[in-house]
C-alpha cells in the first residue's frame, strides 16, 4: 500500500518529474501525429488508386489492345461476383487549346461515361456535373427545406451580396496596405501580412464566384427541386455524366456542319487552372466550352505507328481524381471516338472478313468489394472466363491479357508509400528511445536525491522489493501520465491539424508545411489508426518502466544504514 501512496506523493510533489512527463508527452504526441498523417496519406493514395480503375482490371500487354471485349463483358455480367464492367481505350496524344495557345502531350482515355461512372469514381470526379452541384446543395442547405423558388433565389442572392461585400472590403484592405517602415526586420513581417491579405482577397473572390455559380444553378432549377436537400441534389446532379455540352455551348464548336460534335473532359491539373494555397482551383471564365484539338497516334496490330488522327472537341468538364499523375496528364473523350482515333474500331477487311473492335482494358467492379477475399475470388473467376474466351479466340491470347486486382496493378507504388510510413514511424520510434534515457537519468538523480528516504523506508520495515517497486511504479506512473497527455493532445492535434496549420502556423508564424499548391490533397490527410495508437501508448509506458528499472534496482539494493548516513 505504501508503495502506491509514495508513488503518488512523489508524482504530485516533485517538480523534477515534469521533465520525463514532458518528454513522454511530446514523444507520444509526435508519434501519434506522424503515424496518423502517414496512415491517412497511404489510405488516401490507396483509395484514390482504387477509385481510378475499379476492383479488377483486365489489361492487354499490347498497345493495340485486345478484341472481343463486348463478348467478354457479356460473359462477365453472368458472373455473380461482378457488379459492373466498362471498356477503356488508352493511348498517347497531343492536346491543343488554340484560344489559350496551349500545346501539351497527354494520355487520352476513351471511356463510356455512364458505365465508367458505375465502376470508377469518374462521375464524382467531374466538377461541373457533380462537385459544383454538390457544393451548391451544401451552400444552400441554410435556406431551410422545404422552400420555394423565390425564397431559395432570395437566399442565394443574399449570399452573393454578402460575398461581394466581403470581396470589396478585402480588395480595399489589400489596396490600402501601407508600408510599415523600411527597417529590414519589419520587411519580412510586412511581406507576410501582405501575402495573407492577398490570400484573404483570393478567398473572398472564390466565395463570390461560388455564390454566383450557386445562384445561376438555382435559376435553372425545375419546380420540384425545392422540397428537400435531396431533391435539390437530384435536380442538380445528372443521373449519368455526359460528354455532351449543354445547348448554350453549341456555338463554341469549331467543327464543320458535317462533323460530329464531341465533348472532352480535362484533368484538373493539366495546367489551365491556378490553385491557391488552400487547394482551391480558380477556373477562369472561358476555359469551359473552349474548343480543343486532340491528336492520337494509333498503334497497329503489327506494333507500328499509323497516321495520327485529330478531332475537334469542346471542354465540357474537368476531372479531379486526386492522383496528380492522372489529373496532370489525362484527357477523357468518348469511347467510340477514341476507338476510331486509335484504329481499334470494328473494321471490314479488304481481303474479306471482319476485324473485331478492340479496347485497351476492361475495368470491373466486384460485389461486396470491401472484403479483399471477395476481390481475389472474383479475380480468379474473371481470369477463368478470360481463359475460356482465349480458347475460343486465339487472337485474344496473342494480345497477352492479364487479370489483376487494383492493388496488384498499383502494388509497387502502394508498397513504396507503405514502406515510407513504416520507416518514418520506426525512425521516430528510435528517436523516442531518448525518452528511456531521459527517464533513466532523471530517475538516477532521483534515487540519489531520495537515498535517505530509502533508508527511512527500510528502517520502518519497507523491504528491498518494496523500495524497488516504488521506483518502477513511479516510472510507470510518469510515463502513463505522459502517454495519457500525449494521447489526448495527439488525437486533438490530428483532428484539428488543418485548422492549426492554416490559422496558427501560417497566419501567425508564417510557416506553411502543407502547401496545397504542391500536394495532391487539398487537406492534410489524417486517419487515426487505433491499433497503432495503442502500441505507441504501450511502448511509452514500457519506456518509463525500462528507464526506471536500473535506478529502481540500485535503490532496492541500497544499504539502509548507509542510506541514512547519506548527505
Amino acid at each position, binding site marked *: *500500500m*505504501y508503495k502506491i501512496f509514495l508513488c503518488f506523493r*512523489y508524482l504530485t510533489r516533485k517538480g523534477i518529474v515534469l521533465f520525463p512527463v514532458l518528454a513522454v508527452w511530446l514523444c507520444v504526441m509526435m508519434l501519434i501525429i506522424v503515424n496518423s498523417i502517414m496512415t491517412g496519406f497511404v489510405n488516401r493514395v490507396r483509395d484514390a488508386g482504387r477509385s481510378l480503375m475499379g476492383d479488377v482490371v483486365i489489361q492487354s500487354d499490347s498497345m493495340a489492345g485486345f478484341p472481343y471485349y463486348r463478348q467478354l463483358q457479356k460473359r462477365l455480367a453472368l458472373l455473380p461476383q461482378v457488379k459492373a464492367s466498362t471498356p477503356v481505350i488508352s493511348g498517347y496524344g497531343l492536346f491543343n487549346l488554340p484560344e489559350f495557345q496551349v500545346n501539351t502531350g497527354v494520355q487520352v482515355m476513351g471511356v463510356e461515361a455512364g458505365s465508367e461512372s458505375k465502376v470508377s469514381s469518374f462521375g464524382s470526379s467531374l466538377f461541373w456535373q457533380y462537385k459544383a452541384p454538390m457544393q451548391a446543395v451544401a451552400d444552400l442547405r441554410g435556406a431551410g427545406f422545404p422552400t420555394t423558388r423565390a425564397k431559395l433565389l432570395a437566399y442565394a442572392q443574399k449570399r452573393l451580396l454578402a460575398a461581394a461585400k466581403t470581396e470589396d472590403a478585402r480588395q480595399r484592405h489589400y489596396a490600402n496596405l501601407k508600408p510599415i517602415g523600411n527597417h529590414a526586420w519589419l520587411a519580412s513581417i510586412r511581406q507576410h501580412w501582405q501575402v495573407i491579405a492577398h490570400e484573404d482577397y483570393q478567398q473572398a473572390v472564390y466565395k463570390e464566384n461560388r455564390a454566383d455559380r450557386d445562384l445561376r444553378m438555382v435559376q435553372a432549377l425545375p419546380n420540384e427541386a425545392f422540397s428537400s436537400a435531396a431533391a435539390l441534389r437530384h435536380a442538380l446532379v445528372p443521373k449519368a455524366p455526359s460528354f455532351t455540352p449543354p445547348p448554350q455551348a453549341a456555338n463554341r464548336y469549331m467543327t464543320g456542319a458535317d462533323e460530329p460534335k464531341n465533348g472532352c473532359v480535362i484533368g484538373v491539373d493539366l495546367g489551365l487552372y491556378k490553385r491557391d494555397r488552400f487547394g482551391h482551383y480558380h477556373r477562369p471564365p472561358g476555359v469551359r466550352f473552349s474548343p480543343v484539338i486532340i491528336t492520337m497516334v494509333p498503334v497497329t496490330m503489327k506494333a507500328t505507328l499509323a497516321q495520327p488522327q485529330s478531332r475537334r472537341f469542346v471542354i465540357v468538364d474537368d476531372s479531379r481524381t486526386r492522383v496528380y499523375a492522372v489529373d496532370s496528364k489525362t484527357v477523357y473523350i468518348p469511347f467510340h471516338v477514341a476507338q476510331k482515333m486509335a484504329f481499334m474500331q470494328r473494321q471490314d477487311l479488304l481481303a474479306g472478313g471482319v476485324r473485331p473492335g478492340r479496347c485497351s482494358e476492361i475495368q470491373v467492379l466486384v460485389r461486396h468489394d470491401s472484403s479483399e477475399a471477395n476481390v481475389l475470388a472474383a479475380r480468379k473467376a474473371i481470369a477463368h472466363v478470360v481463359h475460356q474466351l482465349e480458347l475460343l479466340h486465339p487472337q485474344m491470347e496473342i494480345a497477352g491479357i492479364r487479370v489483376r486486382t487494383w492493388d496488384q496493378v498499383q502494388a509497387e507504388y502502394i508498397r513504396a508509400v507503405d514502406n515510407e510510413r513504416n520507416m518514418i514511424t520506426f525512425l521516430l520510434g528510435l528517436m523516442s528511445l531518448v525518452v528511456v534515457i531521459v527517464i533513466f537519468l532523471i530517475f538516477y538523480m532521483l534515487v540519489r536525491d531520495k537515498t535517505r528516504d530509502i533508508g*527511512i*523506508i527500510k*528502517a*520502518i520495515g*519497507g523491504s*528491498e522489493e518494496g523500495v524497488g517497486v516504488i521506483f518502477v511504479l513511479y516510472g510507470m506512473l510518469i510515463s502513463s501520465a505522459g502517454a495519457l497527455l500525449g494521447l489526448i493532445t495527439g488525437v486533438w492535434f490530428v483532428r484539428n491539424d488543418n485548422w492549426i496549420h492554416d490559422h496558427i502556423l501560417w497566419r501567425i508564424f508564417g510557416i506553411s508545411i502543407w502547401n496545397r499548391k504542391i500536394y495532391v490533397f487539398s487537406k492534410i490527410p489524417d486517419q487515426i489508426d487505433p491499433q497503432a495508437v495503442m502500441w505507441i501508448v504501450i511502448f511509452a509506458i514500457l519506456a518509463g518502466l525500462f528507464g526506471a528499472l536500473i535506478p529502481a534496482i540500485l535503490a532496492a539494493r541500497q544499504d539502509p*544504514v548507509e542510506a541514512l548516513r547519506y548527505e
Partner: protein
Amino acid sequence: MNNTLTTTDSSPRKAMLELTNINKTFRLGPADVRVLCGAGLTVFEGEFVALVGASGSGKSTLLHIAGALESADAGSVMFRGQDLSRLSRHSRHRLRNHAFGFVFQLYHLLPELSVLENVLLPAMVCAPWYKACIRARPGKRRALELLEQLGLKDRLRHRPSQLSGGERQRVAIARALINEPALVLADEPTGNLDPKTGQTILDVLRGLHKGSGQSILLVTHDIHIAAQADRVVTLQDGKIVDRTL
C-alpha cells in the same frame, strides 16, 4: 570477554533484547576499522537504557545491529528469544516494522509527506495495497491520538520543512510509536536540538516509559541526558566498559 549484563535485582526480569559478543569491522579505503569487539548488552522488558560513549565509539552501530538494520560480523542478537541472524529477510522487515520504533538524530522525516502521513507511513507498510485509496487509512486514529499527546494536533497537514526541530523530533517519535513497538531505539534524539528542546524530547520519552512501560534504548554522548535513564551503559573501544543499575 562476555559483556552480557546480568541484573542484581532480586525480582526476576525478562530480557527483551540480548546482544552477545558483537563484532563489527568496517572497511574504510585500504584499512579495516574494528568498531565493535565483543560488545554485549541486555535490555529488559519495560526498561529505559541509555548507551553512552564518545563519538565513533560504535554506539550507533550497536543500535543498528540491535534494530536489525545492520548485521554483526560475529556474535548473536536475540530478541524475545528469537535469533535475528536466523530470521529470513521478510521476518526482519516485519520485525523492524512491528517490534522496533526508530528515532534518529536528524529526524529523517519524508519531506514530501505531511506530518500525519509521516506518522502513518509505518502503519501503511504492513497494510494491504487496496487500502491505499481508502480515506480512513490504517492507524489513523492512533496517529491522531499520538500527535495530540505530543502537542502536534494543529500541525497535521504541515510539511516537515514547516516545523521546528523539536516538533520534527516529536513527529519522529509519533512515527516510531504508531505500530506500538516493543522497543524504541533512539539514536541521539536530542543531538540536534538546543538543551531546552532536547529536555522536552527527553521528557516525552520518559513520559512514555513511565506511562506505558515502553522499553527504550537511547544512544547519547551527553551524560546528563543519559542520567535520566533507568540504566546507563558505556561503550568504549568497541566494548561495554561500565554499567549502572
